[in-house]
């Protein structure tokens, strides 16, 4: 059966170049980077070289890069770390309603610890309005966290403008760039980003490793306590192969971005055009300010899981904002925040493209989906021809 993986926003395969860089670090260069002997020094060098490479790709300095176990940990560390280290200045935090749960649930937890959080609304395309952001800033606001690009609908947020507004009021600015890194050019210094989270497994790197960039001078408290790793800001024996893999993946992605983005955008727009021919179809997210790899559409009257199961039987891997496919049973908080009603949110389908997709793949989906939607509509009590 034909296999078409269209869930690159969920995770990506590890590219062969990345795996090749990691392999010798498992069996040969396996030292503990804290050891002073030859094995340890070799591991230390691998870690520090990787740090340099990551820093370079993000426009940061090596000493501003902290390795974590993933995007979730980077978000947790950024928010809790900055909140606790700066709480004497104030206890107000600004974020958006469409953040990833790693940010939202951490914010909710911080509320229980006595912080106040403003969850900014978004427009129908999922964009935070800079005016709203500015209005939300208070004298006791210490931190703002707005994602670089949304993981469900692919909308890119006005990060530079938001960071500028934050700085005008002395507010520290964090962005969850887990989905943006590798698809959007990022220069933390030029863009005024104070903290940035990223993850290895979204950019053809390994799972279980991420990065938190923290601008020099910004104070944040360690969350993982133990040894003296990562300049005492993140304890735990360094995951050297993972770190090497992440750095290699990021470098590759940065290198290939111009051509790959052009290729992805062409495929993306072809897919959107093809699926828009299905009746009662609607594109979710911003038409242009969106990630090159993201297609998110709603098909009224039906529910997402049915689409996923049907697509899966045809070898197509996709995802949905449907409640029925998430552990929580609530339909996508992102789509609801964008003003979609419950039913339309239920019927959303995310197809996220990647390096392995071809035009043939896209055409296969354009060919198969209409029948699937039609069949499910015939079963739906909401649909009347």
């Amino acid at each position, binding site marked *: 059966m034909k296999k078409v993986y269209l869930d690159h926003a969920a995770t990506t395969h590890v590219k062969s170049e990345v795996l090749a860089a990691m392999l010798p670090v498992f069996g040969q260069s396996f030292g503990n980077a804290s050891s002073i002997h030859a094995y340890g020094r070799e591991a230390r060098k691998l870690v520090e070289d990787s740090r340099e490479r990551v820093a370079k790709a993000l426009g940061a300095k090596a000493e501003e890069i902290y390795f974590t176990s993933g995007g979730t940990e980077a978000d947790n560390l950024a928010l809790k770390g900055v909140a606790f280290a700066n709480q004497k200045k104030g206890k107000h935090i600004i974020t958006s309603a469409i953040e990833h749960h790693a940010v939202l649930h951490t914010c909710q937890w911080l509320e229980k610890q006595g912080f106040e959080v403003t969850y900014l609304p978004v427009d129908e395309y999922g964009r935070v309005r800079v005016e709203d952001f500015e209005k939300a800033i208070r004298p006791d606001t210490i931190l703002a966290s707005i994602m670089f690009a949304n993981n469900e609908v692919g909308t890119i947020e006005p990060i530079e403008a938001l960071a500028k507004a934050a700085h005008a009021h002395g507010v520290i600015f964090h962005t969850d760039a887990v989905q943006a890194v590798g698809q959007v050019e990022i220069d933390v210094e030029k863009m005024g980003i104070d903290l940035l989270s990223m993850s290895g497994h979204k950019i053809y790197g390994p799972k279980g490793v991420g990065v938190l960039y923290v601008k020099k001078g910004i104070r944040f408290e360690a969350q993982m306590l133990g040894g003296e790793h990562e300049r005492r800001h993140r304890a735990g024996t360094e995951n050297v192969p993972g770190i090497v893999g992440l750095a290699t993946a990021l470098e590759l992605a940065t290198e290939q971005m111009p051509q790959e983005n052009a290729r992805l955008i062409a495929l993306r727009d072809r897919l959107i055009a093809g699926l828009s021919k299905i009746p009662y179809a609607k594109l979710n997210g911003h038409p242009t300010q969106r990630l090159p790899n993201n297609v998110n559409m709603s098909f009224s009257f039906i529910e997402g899981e049915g689409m996923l199961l049907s697509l899966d039987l045809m070898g197509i891997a996709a995802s949905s904002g449907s409640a*029925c496919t998430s552990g929580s049973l609530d339909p996508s908080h992102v789509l609801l925040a964008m003003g979609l009603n419950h039913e339309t949110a239920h019927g959303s389908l995310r197809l996220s493209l990647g390096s392995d997709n071809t035009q043939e793949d896209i055409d296969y989906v354009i060919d198969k989906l209409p029948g699937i939607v039609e069949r499910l509509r015939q*079963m739906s009590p909401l649909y009347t021809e």
Partner: protein
Amino acid sequence: MYTEKVMDHFMNPRNVGEIENADGVGEVGNAKCGDIMKIFIKVEDERIVDVKFKTFGCGAAIASSSVATEMIKGKTIDEALAITNKMVIEALGGLPDVKIHCSVLAEEALRSAIEDYRKNHMQKS
């Protein structure tokens, strides 16, 4: 995730559709996930001679409706009322824990259709 039986009922659902002038119609919404299920029954001599369903919901909800309609077709009203969501799950060869409520939806839709039939029936007689 799903058993083969669930996938079979999802892909080849039995009794999809509506019954015009049905003797009973049950429509229930799933408070948990916001899904909707509608069951239509045709009753003759206290026996369900035809049944159809329409479902807006996940694969488990569709499969549950399908198998539930199959289970009650040809049964008397009393026999149909004895059907529980546990029996639906069993007939499907099991459901994931988070999908148990979808089978409850089917049981509820069924009962609601029978209630509706009884209400209509009593008024008529």
